[in-house]
């Protein structure tokens, strides 16, 4: 009985199914393609996915707190636009980067105020700000492409290589570490989980659930801003529509990684694994010469299978533990009446 309980608890660790699938996939691509499991190839596609990793971290905060943020992709694009513009105007590197992050923070704060103060549905609010941010980027770029800052230091934000790894990857690793740590180890992180698990009991227990959500949206916006700076420094060019749809990839990654869309369940590193899974899948299929239209279908299928698998494994674990507890209770009661 005890073993069974332990077994089910191990199964209940979300993302186990995903990790398994990940290993299978990497093995398959490595065997079928010579150019897949090569340092350069890996570094290249991981580097490309860095902005998505950064917004996935912020998004995970919001989702765990029981919300959703659709604006992050567009805000990332706009932040890339503002920071590159300021850099092109000759502002110092740090100022241009700060403008990009501030753009993100501003949008995060707008989302936060409308959602927590005016109590408007988060889906609609962030859909609205998504369009505003995307529209502003079009205005900013004036339908042309912004190309080329002369500030080498600005580009260095993403492109400097340390031990063969770009700073962009370094930044995303740092973001994941810092925010995962704060989610798991600080009292703020605890309040985020509590808010997502149960808004009502958390509220009655004296947790300012609105403030928790407010902060989560600001974090999400700020990280979208940071992601924008990193992307601008990487591409050194910004055009209208940049980063559109990133939010959907981030959501898909988070869900694949076992972050529950109803809140209260998941963690950043698992969400990042989910995002990495999608990036790896894309790269592998590309190298295998699969038609881009087909790999969109395969990506969709993977998301569906992953989510269903995770759900059924979790449900199974839940049933096992509650069954055992019912048994324990019976034993206890028999003992008491004897």
């Amino acid at each position: 009985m005890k073993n069974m309980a332990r077994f089910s608890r191990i199964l209940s660790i979300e993302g186990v199914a995903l990790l398994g699938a990940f290993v299978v996939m990497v093995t398959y691509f490595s065997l079928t393609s010579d150019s897949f499991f090569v340092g350069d190839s890996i570094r290249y596609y991981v580097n490309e996915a860095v902005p998505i990793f950064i917004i996935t971290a912020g998004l995970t905060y919001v989702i765990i707190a029981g919300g959703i943020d659709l604006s992050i992709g567009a805000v990332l694009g706009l932040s890339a636009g503002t920071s590159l513009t300021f850099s092109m105007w000759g502002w110092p590197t740090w100022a241009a980067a700060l403008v990009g992050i501030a753009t993100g923070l501003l949008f995060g704060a707008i989302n936060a105020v409308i959602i927590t103060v005016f109590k408007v549905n988060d889906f609609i609010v962030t859909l609205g700000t998504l369009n505003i941010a995307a529209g502003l980027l079009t205005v900013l770029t004036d339908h042309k492409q912004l190309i080329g800052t002369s500030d080498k230091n600005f580009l260095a934000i993403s492109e400097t290589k340390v031990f063969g790894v770009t700073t962009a990857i370094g930044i995303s690793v740092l973001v994941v570490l810092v925010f995962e740590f704060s989610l798991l180890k600080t009292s703020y992180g605890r309040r985020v989980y509590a808010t997502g698990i149960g808004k009502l009991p958390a509220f009655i227990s004296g947790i300012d659930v609105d403030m928790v959500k407010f902060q989560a949206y600001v974090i999400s916006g700020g990280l979208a801003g940071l992601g924008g700076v990193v992307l601008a420094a990487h591409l050194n060019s910004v055009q209208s529509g940049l980063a559109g749809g990133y939010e959907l990839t981030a959501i898909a990654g988070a869900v694949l990684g076992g972050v529950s869309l109803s809140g209260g369940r998941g963690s950043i590193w698992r969400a990042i694994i989910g995002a990495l899974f999608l990036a790896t899948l894309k790269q592998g299929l590309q190298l295998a010469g699969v038609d881009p239209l087909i790999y969109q279908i395969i990506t969709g299928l993977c998301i569906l299978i992953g989510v269903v698998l995770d759900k059924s494994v979790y449900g199974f674990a839940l049933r096992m533990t509650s069954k055992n507890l019912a048994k324990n209770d019976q034993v206890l009661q028999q003992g008491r009446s004897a």
Partner: protein
Amino acid sequence: MKDQAGSVPPILRMEGISKRYQAVQALDHVDLTVSSGEIHALLGGNGAGKSTLLKILSGLTNPDEGRIFFEGTEVTVEHPSRAQQLGISMIHQELSIIPDLTVLENIFLGQQRTLTQSKKWTPWINRRDLAKRVQELTQEFGISKTELWAPAADLGSLKKRSIEIVKALVAQPKILILDEPTSGLEEHEKALLFEHMRSLQRRGVSLIWVTHHLDEIFGLAEKATVMRDGKTVQHVSLENLNVQKLIALMFGSEAAALINLTEDAHTLEVNSGQVSKISLEVQGLNRQGVLKDISFKLHEGEILGIAGLAGAGRSELMRAIIGADSTDSGTIQISGITRTINHPKKAYELGLAMIPEDRKILGILSEFSVEQNITLAKLKKVTKFGLINRKREVQISDAFVAQLQIKTPNLKEKIRNLSGGNQQKVIISRCLNADPNILIFDEPTQGIDVSSKVEVHKVIRNLASSGKSVVVIASELNELIGLSDRVLVLREGALVGEIKNIPAKVQADGYETVEREILNAASKVTS
């Protein structure tokens, strides 16, 4: 049980109905017999199983055991549409009116069967034809022709109730179930409703009437079925009964036995003339439509019981005090200082804590472990520089698990895997961890087993003896009387009674007298 008059055959007979929800036996071989054209009262305290029985009858849930006979033939009511087909309609306690639809649209909402009974079939809904069909009926219930086309939101609460009745009647039911039909109605509106009920009876419709207002049923209902703890206690004819006898049937005479608990109850200093300090003073608390000008004081070391029927505003009062709900006016003083409490967070800071009712929804954080649940209300205690100190968290939780004898495999176990009684102890620990001076227990023993119940009672008494102030809301009167030093009675959001020195009074006048006094105040019976 003398009358089983052969002349009128029962339209409905439910036999040996049982229903189990996980650990709770909601119904245990319950019987219900209703004759044609009879007004039949279905009575019982909260959790007696009335609503489960009615859900089974209206097809919302299915019984585990038992048989249902309708007009003499055995039937199964597996779905609400089947109930409609048989002629069983229900008027719910909460109005199911959709405010943006017109009265007419509301009446025909969800009545696919009657909609298609039109004389000539048309692919669209002929509203004019529908209006013609219900005009007579609506007029009888006080809804004019023009009102049929108005949005339902424009109508008063009695007329909304009438819409519900008409809606139930267009399906031409043989049995109509009314669940607390008078809630939200003024006195004169109630009289009108009773008139409607009589006219329904004259049409040969059988009414099953659920109510907590015992005084209403006399003179209207002929028979009653009394339920307690999921069992049928008795089928009675109401002719030679009164409210007091009904109460005894509903709550049982063993209630007195539990009262022995008061023997080891602490003695309050207030009783012995020595005045203890006032910890909480509420003055003129108002909330539109919920609370009416409530003022009371709470002393240190006192257990104050709050009595009242469902919907009297007991939980709402406490939620207003801890800042979970807003108020329109009124002041709250804690230890003599006026405070504004606009969020439970503030309440915790000021030493107020509440163990909420409805543990599963308002109490537990299901995905959190036992320790995470315990430390939640005062994370400061386990936090240093914003970081959670795991050692300290384990230490604190361990102490509570030992103190309250919480049965859990380990501290990391998710709270949802614990039994109800142990979950409740964890929530009590969460409140205690915040070191409050005033504790509010809302239905603290709801749905927990007897031994946990006794332990929770012990915790409450110990808190009071150590000088804390305790407020207890409990629907079970024997529990409330057994615990409290003083009881406040609420009715329809207003404070309508106060009974002091409960333990002394129980000893002097007997348990039943005290219980009757509370019930009379709560249900407005003048004896």
